[in-house]
C-alpha cells in the first residue's frame, strides 16, 4: 500500500490513466491512512461508502478511456464547503447536524472532473482562527512532529494536516486572510489562494464575503495546478465571480522565470521573524536569481496597516454573514419563552469564543457613530494597500515574501488573540488586495518544522504564479515527509 501513498496527485493520475493502479485501491489506501492517522483529528466526517462508489465509477471511466482530469483522485474537503447529503458544520456547534441539500460550485466542479470524496476536514470555527484550535470538535494536530503536539495552522488546519499526513491526496481550503497559505506553510505542503473571483463562493459557508476564496492544498505545485484547473471557473450564481477564462495551468509548469522581475518588499523583513525563516527567505531569493530572475527591492508602504484593517473588515462582514444562524430555520436551536431569549441562548451556546469575539468586534465597527472611524477608514486603507500592489506591479512580475513570521507553534501555547492574529501578517495584504498567492515549503527550521515561502502575483495571473512557484520548488528540493504521516 505504501507505494500508493508515495504518489503525488500528478503521478497518481498518470498511474491511473496507464491502468497501473485503480482508483478503488488508491481510495482504499487513503481510507486506511485516514484511520491510521485518526489521532490527528483532521477529519470531521468520513464518507467511506460514497468514496468507494465514486472510486468504482471512476475505474469504469478509466477502463472506458473516458477519464476526466481528476479521475479517481481521492481528496478531502474543508468543512466550509456545503456538500449535498453530507454533514457540513463549518466546525461549529451551531451547525452540528446540518446536512445541505445542495453542493457547492467548487466541489461540484471537482466531482464533475472525476475526483473522489474521502470526507470533510476540520477547520477553525467558521474559518476564524490561525491554529485550528477554535474548531468545536477540538484542534487538529500537525503531523510534522511525533513527540510534540504542534498546531497545523488555520483555518484550513484539517486540510493541511491531512495532505501532510497523506490521508488525502489533496484537499480544498478557503483563505480569507491566510487560511490556506499559513497552514500549508506550517504543514510543509503547497497552498494556493487564487485571485478573488477565480473560484465561485456559491455554497461555501461565508465568513468574510469580500475576502473568502477557495483554493487547493496539495503536495506539489503541479498538484495545485491540476486541482485549481478544476476548481476555478465563472459561476453566474456568484455575482463576484470573475467572467474570465483561466488558462490551463499545466501548460505553465515549466515556463521558467528567465528575465522575470521578482520584488522583495522591505516591509516584510521586520523584527519578530524567526532567524531560520529569514535564512530560507534569503536562500529563496538566491535560487530565483540563479534561475535568471531579476531581484528588485520594492516598497509596499501601507503594509503595517493591513492587519488592523483586516481585523475590522473581516469581522464586520462576519457579524452580518453569521446573523443567519439564529435557530429559526436550521441548525441548533435552544427553546426559550421569547424570540430574543431564543436568539441569545441559541447563539450563545452555538458559537465559540473566537466567533463571538469577531461578531462583537464586527457589530461594534459597523455601529452608528463608529462606522466612519473604523469600517470606512479600514476600507480606505484597503484601497491604499491595493494601490501599493498596483504600483509595485508596474515594476515587477511577482513578489516574494515569507509565508509566516514563525513556524508552527505548540498547541495551547498561543492564547492571546492579538499574538494569534500576527500569524497572518504576511498573508493578509494580498487577501485585502484580492491577489493570488501561493505558499510552498522550502526547508526545515532547527526544530525540524517546515518553512513556507509565499509568492504573490498580479490579479488573475495564476499561470505566472505557478511557473515561478515551480522554479522555486525545484530549487528548494523539499522532499521531507512528516513524522506523523501515514506510511
Amino acid at each position, binding site marked *: 500500500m505504501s507505494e500508493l501513498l508515495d504518489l503525488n496527485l500528478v503521478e497518481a493520475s498518470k498511474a491511473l490513466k496507464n491502468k497501473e493502479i485503480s482508483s478503488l485501491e488508491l481510495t482504499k489506501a487513503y481510507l486506511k491512512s485516514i484511520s491510521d492517522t485518526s489521532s490527528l483529528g483532521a477529519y470531521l466526517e468520513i464518507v467511506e461508502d460514497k468514496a468507494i462508489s465514486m472510486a468504482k465509477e471512476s475505474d469504469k471511466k478509466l477502463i472506458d478511456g473516458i477519464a476526466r482530469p481528476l479521475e479517481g483522485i481521492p481528496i478531502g474537503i474543508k468543512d466550509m464547503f456545503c456538500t449535498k447529503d453530507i454533514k457540513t458544520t463549518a466546525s461549529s456547534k451551531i451547525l452540528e447536524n446540518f446536512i445541505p441539500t445542495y453542493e457547492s460550485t467548487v466541489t461540484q466542479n471537482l466531482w464533475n472532473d472525476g475526483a473522489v470524496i474521502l470526507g470533510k476536514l476540520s477547520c477553525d470555527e467558521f474559518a476564524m482562527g490561525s491554529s485550528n484550535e477554535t474548531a468545536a470538535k477540538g484542534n487538529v494536530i500537525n503531523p510534522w512532529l511525533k513527540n510534540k503536539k504542534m498546531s497545523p495552522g488555520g483555518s484550513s488546519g484539517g486540510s493541511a494536516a491531512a495532505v501532510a499526513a497523506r490521508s488525502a491526496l489533496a484537499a480544498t481550503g478557503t483563505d480569507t486572510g491566510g487560511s490556506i497559505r499559513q497552514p500549508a506553510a506550517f504543514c510543509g505542503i503547497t497552498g494556493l489562494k487564487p485571485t478573488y473571483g477565480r473560484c465561485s463562493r456559491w455554497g461555501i459557508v*461565508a465568513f468574510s464575503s469580500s475576502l473568502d476564496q477557495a483554493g487547493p492544498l496539495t503536495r506539489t505545485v503541479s498538484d495545485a495546478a491540476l486541482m485549481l484547473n478544476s476548481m476555478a471557473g465563472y459561476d453566474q450564481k456568484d455575482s463576484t465571480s470573475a467572467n474570465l477564462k483561466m488558462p490551463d495551468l499545466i501548460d505553465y509548469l515549466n515556463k521558467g522565470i528567465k528575465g522575470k522581475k521578482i520584488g522583495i518588499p522591505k516591509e516584510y523583513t521586520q523584527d519578530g521573524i524567526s532567524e531560520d525563516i529569514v535564512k530560507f527567505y534569503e536562500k529563496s531569493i538566491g535560487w530565483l536569481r540563479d534561475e535568471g530572475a531579476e531581484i528588485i527591492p520594492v516598497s509596499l508602504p501601507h503594509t503595517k496597516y493591513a492587519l488592523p484593517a483586516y481585523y475590522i473588515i473581516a469581522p464586520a462582514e462576519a457579524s*452580518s454573514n453569521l*446573523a443567519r444562524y*439564529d435557530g429559526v430555520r436550521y441548525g441548533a436551536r435552544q427553546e426559550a419563552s421569547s424570540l430574543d431569549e431564543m436568539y441569545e441562548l441559541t447563539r450563545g451556546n452555538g458559537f465559540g469564543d473566537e466567533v463571538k469575539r469577531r461578531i462583537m468586534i464586527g457589530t461594534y465597527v*459597523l455601529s452608528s457613530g463608529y462606522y466612519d472611524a473604523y469600517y470606512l477608514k479600514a476600507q480606505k486603507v484597503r484601497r491604499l494597500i491595493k494601490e501599493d500592489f498596483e504600483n509595485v506591479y508596474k515594476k515587477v512580475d511577482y513578489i516574494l515574501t515569507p509565508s509566516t513570521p514563525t513556524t508552527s507553534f505548540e498547541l495551547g501555547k498561543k492564547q492571546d488573540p492579538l499574538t494569534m492574529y500576527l500569524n497572518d501578517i504576511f498573508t493578509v495584504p494580498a487577501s485585502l488586495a484580492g491577489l493570488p498567492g501561493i505558499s510552498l515549503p522550502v526547508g526545515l527550521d532547527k526544530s525540524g518544522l517546515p518553512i513556507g515561502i509565499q509568492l504573490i502575483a498580479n490579479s488573475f495571473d495564476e499561470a505566472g504564479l505557478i511557473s515561478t512557484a515551480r522554479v522555486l520548488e525545484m530549487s528548494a528540493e523539499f522532499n521531507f515527509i512528516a513524522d506523523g504521516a501515514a506510511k
Partner: protein
Amino acid sequence: MNDTSTLKPGHIQGETGIWEMVIGLEIHAQISSKSKLFSGASASFGSEANRNVSLVDAAMPGMLPVINEFCVEQAVKTGLALNAKINNVSVFDRKNYFYADLPQGYQISQFTKPIVGEGEIIVDLDDGEQTTIGIERLHLEQDAGKSLHDQHPTKSYIDLNRTGVALMEIVSKPDIRSPQEAGAYVKKIRSILRYIGACDGNMEEGSLRADCNVSVRKSGEEFGTRCEIKNLNSIRFIIQAIQSEAERQVDILEEGGTIDQETRLFDTSTGETRSMRSKEDAHDYRYFPDPDLLPLEFTESWVQDIKEKLPELPDSLKKRLVKDFGITAYDASILVEEKDYVDFYQQAANGRDGKLTANWMITELFGALKKDNLSFSESPITSENLGELISLISNGTISGKIAKEVFSEMMKSKKSPSEIVKEKGLEQVSDDSEILKLIDQVISDNQDKVNEYLSGKDKLFGFFVGQVMKLSQGKANPGIVNKLLKEKLK
C-alpha cells in the same frame, strides 16, 4: 369654538392659531416581476405558506444573491416616469436586524447610493388645482417574510413566501401639506406605476403600501418633530391617519408639550395612531455595502433605450386628449387616472364625437358599473360597443333617449347596440313622409290645441312635438319632427 368650516385642508385651528401640516411619504411598491429581487423563486401572491422559497430566500449557508435585471429595469423605468435623476452607479447595502421573518438577519436595500435620485411629479387635486411634489429618491430593496402569531397558543409561524420579493421604495420630499394632497400624491404615483407596468398598484394585496411622516408647525416656522406612521394600505387610511396624527400633535403642542420622534401604527378600528417604538428603541441597522453584490452599473444608452420604450404618461396623455378630442381638462383627468380607462376611451372615441364619448363613458358607463358593483375590467360593454352606440347617436339612427334604453340593454345582455336596435326595432324614423303621417294624425286628434296655437299660444309647440314623439314610440327624429311641424303649423 372657532369656526373651522373655512379652514384650508391641512390646516388645524388651535387655541394659539392655525397649524400647518408637513407631510412626507415613503411608498413601498412591489415590482410586477415573476421572480424575486435576488432569487429565482416565484413572487406570486396567495400561494400556500412557504411554497415560494428558494435556498437563497431561506438564507441557507453559502447562498448568494444574484440581481434580477428585470427589476432593475422597472426601477429605472419608474425613475424616468417620475422625472428623476437615474444614477448609473448605485450600491446595495445590508440593513442588519434580527427578526424571525428575516432569514438573512439583514435586508438587502440601498442606503447611500440609490438607483434613482431627485425628481418631481404633478399631482391633481380635487378642486381641479395642481401642485408639484418633489421626489427625494427611489431605491430597490427586499421585502421581509410574514410572522403569523395567531396560529398556535405559544408559537409564531413564519411564512417566507414574501421574503426577497422586490420592492421599490419611493421617498417624497416633505412637500405635502394636507391629507388630501397625500391621497392625491399616492393616487398619482399608483397611476404612473400602473401605466408603465412596474407595479400593479394593488393596495389590498399589499403591492402598494405607504409610511407617512407627519409633523405640524405654524406657517413660516421651521419643521416640527415628525412621527412616522407605518404600513398604511389604503388611500382612505392614509388620509385618516395623517389627519388624526396631526391633530394629536397639535393637542400636545397646544398644551405646552413636545413631540417625541417615534414610529406609530394606525388603528383602523379607532381611527387613531398609537406608539409602536420610540427613537430610543430604534434599531441601529449597521448599514454597510453588501459584499456579495457588485455595484449596480449601467450605461446611458441602456437608460435611453428604456426611455424610448416608455409609454405615454398621464400628464402628457391628458393634454393630448384635450387637444385631440376636444374634451374638458376635468374629463381628461378622470380618463387618465387609469390606463385601462384611456385605452378604452381612445378606442371608443376613435373617429367619433370625443365629447359625446367622454360623457357617455364617465356619466353612463362609470355610473352603471358603480350601481352594479362591477370593476372596470368586468364591464359588460366593450369599447367597440360603446363606440358603435356613439356612432348610432351621431348619425341619427337612434335618439339620445333611445340610446339610454339601448345602453341598459347592453349592460344586461352584452349585445352590440346595432343588434339591440335591430331586434327591438328602435331605429330612428327620419323619413319625412312617415313623420308627416304622424304629424297629420296628431293635428287631427288635437284640433282645439291647433287653434289655440295658431291664435298665438306659442308655448303649445312643445306639446305637439311630444305627441308626435310619443306616437312614434320615441323613434322619430326630433329635429325633423320640429322642422316639419313648424312648416305644417305655419
